[in-house]
């Protein structure tokens, strides 16, 4: 699949050299109480007709602000303070609202980031597409309705005609994204700005939608400006790359060249941290030589993060610490009236985790992987089957026995924004499990908090901070520290790094590996991201629709996947087979 795309890039790269969009020294600032805060600082880029260009950067790099500045739809108090945005030679920065109205939709289409919030919940789908068609004078009257159906079919909604009267909440995320792509392309614009068009979607859906988008834009000769945090995706889908960091362009040029030979230290870092199928499991750096400072400076991820695939030492792991046997979980979902639908979220799942190892549970949304985590954590009861922990059946544990189990098995959840109480400062958050289990006196707890902050490489002063003042990565380190407070044997990591930028993600994965070696921890690592699995897991269970379809060692799964579904997942990883220059 990815080979065909790379071929097509080769073709179109020669097509044109006419600049469609030229941004010169663009500066954008946001007016706040403390004055104008710059978000984009002197960005220049050129996009030729028929080409695809990707702006890559972490959150806060100014990539989305740059995209929104082009169609002059900056959020809140944002303002273009300097620079030019030349579209076919015309400076968009100087256009009036009325003139921009003519540019938007007709000349420049826009596909927003979050499919959930970008369609108006109170109007039906047909109305929202047709509105765009009429506004840009593509068609009127009956023809507009016909065109609406056509647009949606082209975007991949084959039953578009029957679904025109449906509302956004009746559509899945992938379908909504198709609608938004349809709207963006409905007037056949010369340029399409796609802001993280697939970051909220499952990898297989992402692949389908990107392929589709690629075909459509190639057919129409539309230029595409991709905004993405995913270097793999950028490499696979765009011929030109612009890397942004803190509001500035640090490196730009042909994708293949930049990835093969990154020059700027920041780009080098990004390229090194991008997980791909070629990565190998992270080995503990402590057992080698690097010190803490080095690890968290992120300077030499090359050697520490993606260490060579040395044989993992055969730990004392002869016995299974966690043994899951034929567990199922049934939910009853109320449908209309008093009827119930039964949903088998987890269907006859069995696996075992040896002490001191990491098992990854991989699957797309709705595969039941997070439910398995909840069942193991005893947050929900199993419908049938058996969960053994350290030789003991844990289903239906109560009171003191349950409390004892909780001391040994601790969770870290996905959302670093939601899993910490916003009203609790860091010190109290980390001390909470100690208090709940009545461990130590105030001074001892304080000492333990200090030790834990140290383990996750945060300064002691952090204890007074509140979650809202910390970055996503820092919050996730707090969550890890809290989970470690009771010196557990097992951490259940539910999508623990999914919401993080790639460099921060690398850092947390590194930290987890360190801690595993140091404390002899056992991990159950739940994720949708196969590329991350390769970095941390010893064994992999692939889940689909509540069932485990493949269980194997990490190398087996990546080198010779047996099941078609696993192969599909592997193929869907953006830039999966791409050889990054390291």
């Amino acid at each position, binding site marked *: 699949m990815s080979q065909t795309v790379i071929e097509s890039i080769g073709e179109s790269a020669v097509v044109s050299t006419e600049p469609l969009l*030229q941004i*010169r020294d663009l500066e954008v600032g946001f007016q*706040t*109480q403390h004055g104008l805060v710059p978000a984009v600082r002197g960005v220049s880029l*050129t996009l*030729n007709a028929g080409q695809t260009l990707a702006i890559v950067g972490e959150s806060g790099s100014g990539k989305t602000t740059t995209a929104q500045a082009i169609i002059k739809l900056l959020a*809140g108090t944002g303002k273009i303070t300097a620079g030019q945005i030349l579209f076919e030679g015309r400076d968009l920065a100087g256009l009036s609202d009325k003139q921009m109205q003519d540019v938007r939709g007709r000349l420049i289409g826009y596909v927003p980031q979050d499919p959930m919030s970008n369609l108006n919940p109170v109007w039906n789908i047909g109305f929202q597409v047709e509105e765009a068609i009429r506004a840009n004078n593509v068609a009127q009257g009956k023809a507009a309705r016909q065109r609406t159906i056509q647009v949606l079919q082209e975007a991949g909604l084959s039953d578009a005609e029957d679904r025109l009267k449906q509302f956004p909440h009746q559509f899945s995320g992938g379908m909504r994204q198709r609608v938004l792509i349809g709207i963006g392309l409905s007037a056949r614009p010369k340029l399409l700005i796609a802001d993280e068009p697939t970051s909220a979607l499952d990898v297989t859906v992402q692949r389908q939608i990107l392929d589709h988008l690629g075909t459509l834009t190639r057919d129409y000769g539309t230029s595409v400006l991709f905004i993405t945090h995913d270097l793999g995706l950028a490499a696979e889908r765009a011929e030109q790359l612009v890397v942004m*960091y*803190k509001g*500035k*362009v*640090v*490196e*730009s*040029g*042909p994708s293949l060249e*930049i990835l093969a030979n990154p*020059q*700027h*230290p*920041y780009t080098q*870092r990004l390229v090194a941290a991008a997980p791909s199928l070629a990565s190998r499991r992270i080995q503990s750096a402590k057992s080698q030589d690097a010190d803490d400072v080095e690890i*968290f*400076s*992120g300077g030499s991820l090359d050697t520490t993060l993606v260490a060579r695939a040395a044989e993992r030492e055969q730990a004392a792991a002869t016995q299974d610490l966690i043994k899951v046997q034929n567990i199922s979980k049934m939910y009853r979902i109320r449908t209309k009236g008093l009827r119930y639908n039964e949903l088998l979220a987890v269907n006859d799942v069995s696996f075992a985790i040896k002490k001191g190892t990491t098992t990854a549970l991989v699957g797309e949304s709705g595969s039941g992987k997070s439910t398995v985590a909840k069942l193991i*954590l*005893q947050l929900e009861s199993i419908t049938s089957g058996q969960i053994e922990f350290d030789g003991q059946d844990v289903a239906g544990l109560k009171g003191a026995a*349950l409390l004892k189990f*909780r001391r040994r098995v*601790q*969770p870290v*959840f*996905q*959302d670093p924004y*939601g*899993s*910490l*109480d*916003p*009203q609790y*400062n860091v010190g109290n958050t980390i001390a*909470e*499990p100690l208090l*709940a*289990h009545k461990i130590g006196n105030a001074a001892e707890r304080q000492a333990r908090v200090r030790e834990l902050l140290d383990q996750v490489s945060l*300064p002691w*002063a*952090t204890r007074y*901070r*509140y979650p*809202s*003042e*910390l*970055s996503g990565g*820092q919050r996730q380190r707090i*969550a890890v520290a809290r*989970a470690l407070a*009771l010196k557990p044997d097992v951490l259940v990591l539910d999508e623990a790094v999914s919401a993080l930028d790639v*460099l*921060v993600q690398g850092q947390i994965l590194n930290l987890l590996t360190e801690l595993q070696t140091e404390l002899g921890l056992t991990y159950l690592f739940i994720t949708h991201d196969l590329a991350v699995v390769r970095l941390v897991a010893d064994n992999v269970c692939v889940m689909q629709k509540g069932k485990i379809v493949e269980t194997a060692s990490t190398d087996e799964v990546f080198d010779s996947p047996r099941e078609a579904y696993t192969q599909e997942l592997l193929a869907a990883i953006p830039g999966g087979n791409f050889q990054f220059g390291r």
Partner: protein
Amino acid sequence: MPNKNPNAQTHYVAALEETPVEVVDRLDESQKARSTWADAWDAMRVRPTFWISSALILLIVIVALFPSLFAQVSPTECDLGDSHAGPGDGHPLGYTRQGCDIYARIIFGTQASVTVGLLATILVTFTGIIVGALAGYYGGVLDSIVSRIGDIFFAVPTVLGAIVLMSVLPERTPVTIALVLSLFAWPQIARIMRGAVLSARNSDYVTASVALGVSKFRILLRHVVPNSIAPVIVIATVSLGTFIVAEATLSFLGIGLPPGIMSWGNDIDAAKSSLRTNPQVLLYPAAALSVTVLAFLMLGDVVRDALDPEARARR
């Protein structure tokens, strides 16, 4: 080596001096730690409205507690000879129809209004928070029963219910009025609290606390309630004003406080017959009441802006 022309689609690398690479995800230690409540306080502190309304409320409460500090003239020693007399020395606002000093009556009438407002607000807020929190957090049968009872009381508009109940109650004092008003007003707060608790209960930090082994009740007390009361505080501040208006309305209808108890509502009711000749007799107590209500409304606005996370994010 940096390319001189960044517009060309050649490989461009920014000068390292201009784009220094920083340590990944470093904690900015220069900033001071702030809790959400401290944040809210900061947001309120800079608003003049906050200080104006707070000062007014403080003044009103002091007047209610120690009316004799502010008025030396007795409000009940009236001389019909002074009926509708204009302002004079020591009588800045003139006299009512009965020849009572208007200023003194306003000062001494404060207590009744403030008592009703404060007491009803406290009752409603506590009942609402406790009932809403238990129903939302424990759910199940308890929730169903409590919600249905709430629906029933909610179906009777507060003042309508109060009209019925007050017209049959043998005794009418500020305390009974506050009790009657809270009887019909608690479901509103309970509903808001229940909704807030429901969303807090499903948050990840609560799940995390369960998995850490924190007890269910402790989670309710330490995590769920503190994260749910912000909207209740906002409504409570505003409802204090509406209770004062409700008391005045009941007194105006003649089923609030008996004429023997001085209150703004009674004075306005008594003044309506003098409206055509001496509108000031009605306007002064009405102004006192409106300023009080306005003070609480403005405070409510400031508190809402400070506690609304979206408003803070926009800052």
